[in-house]
């Protein structure tokens, strides 16, 4: 009797996990691996036209869903702590956090929510969505590349992308005069997601 019950519950458990597994095969859900820092949001901006300044946002979080059969239904959502801007210079970062630029007291979060995604056979894609920065929400287009996916050595499953986009700072209400060479900022995104069970 006891054995029978055990058998039933085992069978039931297998069926449940199988059907759940089938659902995962359609839309995979990933959490961006910021915990172990396998994701980066870097920016690049011209310094007077002579060189380019690089920096990054150290704290953000996000997730995405991905359907290998129908990439177009994929979705991404990322939330960035604006105060975590880091260009390796305390006074500059303080200035960038101030009301002259990001105004992090007033706008502590920047947010990206995808609207559409297209992917070619070679992995290159275009991700469109809305970016909210400095309190202004505008559509942005990110050129992406699917880099790879598969099981990791620690029993998980990962999937990674890269992306670049350009923003005109003034479009987001950031109009501090850095000179004509520095009106646009380039963003480079490197994102690795860990699949959720």
């Amino acid at each position, binding site marked *: 009797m006891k054995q029978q019950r055990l058998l039933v519950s085992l069978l039931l458990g297998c069926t449940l996990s199988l059907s759940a597994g089938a659902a995962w095969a359609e839309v995979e859900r990933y959490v961006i691996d910021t915990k172990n820092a396998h994701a980066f949001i870097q920016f690049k901006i011209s310094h007077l036209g002579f060189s380019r300044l690089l920096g990054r946002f150290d704290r953000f979080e996000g997730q995405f869903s991905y359907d290998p059969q129908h990439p177009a239904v994929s979705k991404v959502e990322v939330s960035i702590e604006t105060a975590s801007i*880091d260009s*390796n210079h*305390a*006074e500059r*970062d*303080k200035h960038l*956090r101030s009301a002259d630029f990001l105004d992090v007291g007033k706008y502590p979060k920047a947010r990206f929510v995808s609207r559409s995604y297209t992917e070619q056979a070679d992995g290159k894609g275009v991700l469109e969505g809305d970016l909210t920065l400095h309190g202004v929400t505008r559509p942005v287009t990110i050129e992406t590349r699917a880099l790879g996916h598969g099981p990791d050595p620690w029993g998980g499953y990962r999937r990674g992308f890269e992306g670049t986009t350009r923003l005109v700072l003034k479009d987001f209400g950031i109009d501090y*005069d*850095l*000179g004509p060479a520095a009106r646009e900022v380039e963003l480079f995104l490197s994102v690795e997601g860990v699949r959720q069970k």
Partner: protein
Amino acid sequence: MLRSTRQRFGSIAILFHWGIALGVVVLYALGLYLDELGYQDPWFNRAMDLHKGLGMLLFAAILARWLWRRVDVQPVPLETYSAFEQWSARMMKAVLYLLLVLVPLSGYLISSAEGQPIDVFGWFHVPALISGLPEQADVAGEVHGFLAHLLIALAVVHALAAIKHHVFDHDDTLRRMTFRPLRSSSRE
């Protein structure tokens, strides 16, 4: 008379006093100025370098003054001071000394927040000993600005009190912090 006596301040204390007073006023003005400068201004970097370099030197002078004060004789309050004047002068002195340490210290914590040392006119660097505290540069910046305003406000009160003693009470309060002879010279 390098050292102070019970009646008056010595040359070293006088030079420290007026040198640091001048430094505080110059740094305050420079601080207000560099806050207004835009990125394109020719003084944008220079004013900041000057403020930081002078600030670190002034910080060293303040610490040296504090050390000297410990080995020097302390002039006693004038007999003509009321109990309130004695008490308020002592409180003011304590708060001014405290602010003279906290203002440069908070400034130091802004620039060193991400581990970079502070360059003093290319002569030497002050290493970043404390960095990476949560919101260090921003919090230190707020504190630096607020305490600097407070320091100037209290220094004005301190100066007005000295002028009051000099002009209205005709006593030696101000004179004994200068190289001029005391009015009550019999007491020297």
